[in-house]
């Protein structure tokens, strides 16, 4: 799992009931705008995310509708599990790092 994907999932897990549109996710995950759509598409194809159109009339507001993303119930569980695995792996690597560098474990 790439670091941007982890950042997106952590952002969404922090606010499991909230819906975000693309720019909000970028801002909350400290990622550059325009880079997360492949991640969102992949997570949506896995069923971890669901999306819906903003409920407004574009002709009245003068702007296109936003697409809001949120975690599904199953997606939230899967994401928590995946992030926990990633964290555990990172903790193991951090534990091994002093040995590689000649320090004490």
């Amino acid at each position: 799992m790439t670091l941007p994907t982890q950042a997106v999932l952590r952002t969404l897990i922090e606010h499991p009931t909230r819906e975000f549109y693309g720019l909000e996710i970028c801002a909350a995950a400290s990622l550059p705008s325009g880079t997360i759509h492949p991640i969102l598409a992949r997570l949506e194809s896995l069923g971890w995310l669901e999306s819906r159109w903003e409920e407004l009339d574009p002709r009245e507001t003068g702007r296109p509708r936003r697409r809001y993303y949120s975690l599904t119930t199953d997606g939230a569980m899967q994401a928590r599990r995946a992030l926990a695995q990633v964290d555990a792996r990172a903790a193991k690597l951090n534990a091994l790092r002093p040995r590689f560098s000649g320090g004490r474990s």
Partner: protein
Amino acid sequence: MTGPEPESVPAAADDDAVLLRVLGALRTESRHPAIPAPRRASCDERLPRRIPGANPGSHSPWPTQEPLRVVRDASSIAQTATGYMRGWRRGHKAALERRLSPATTAAAVARQPSSSRAALRRIAFRPGAAASRLVGLVVQVLPQGERRRYHEEFRAELSRLQGLHQLAYAIRLLLSALALRHALRQQRPGATGEE
């Protein structure tokens, strides 16, 4: 003590008589073959005296027509002039907008000889338009069934940004377009964003 009366000032009639005599003498002299006689002397007959407001001739151009009365009614003027003034205001506003709008200036820039510098100037002048074109390009890379959804989604996010941020957003979309296409092709069949 009464001296001789000073010679009275000749009247205007006397002046005319002197003038007529002089002109008569000149006319007599003009009979000399070397001097052609004038066809018409303006002083042969006296012209009718022009009296303001009274036509001396009997040939009025509209003898039977009475002069129209000038009526200055604000409401009737407004009825006939409102459309004209509205059209004038619209035209004036359009002319001002055309003169001041960046599109006109961009069009003027576009008329310049094409070069990379001119293209960069156009992009810097209208980053939003350049970003919109890039978004259109990105959407063309995506699978057919997803284009409409992502075009609207990208445009909605683009509308939240300003200036060069729009351009940066569109460039990042362009850089990640192939990854997005790959992710969308891995989706389960029939799952599209169209509603």
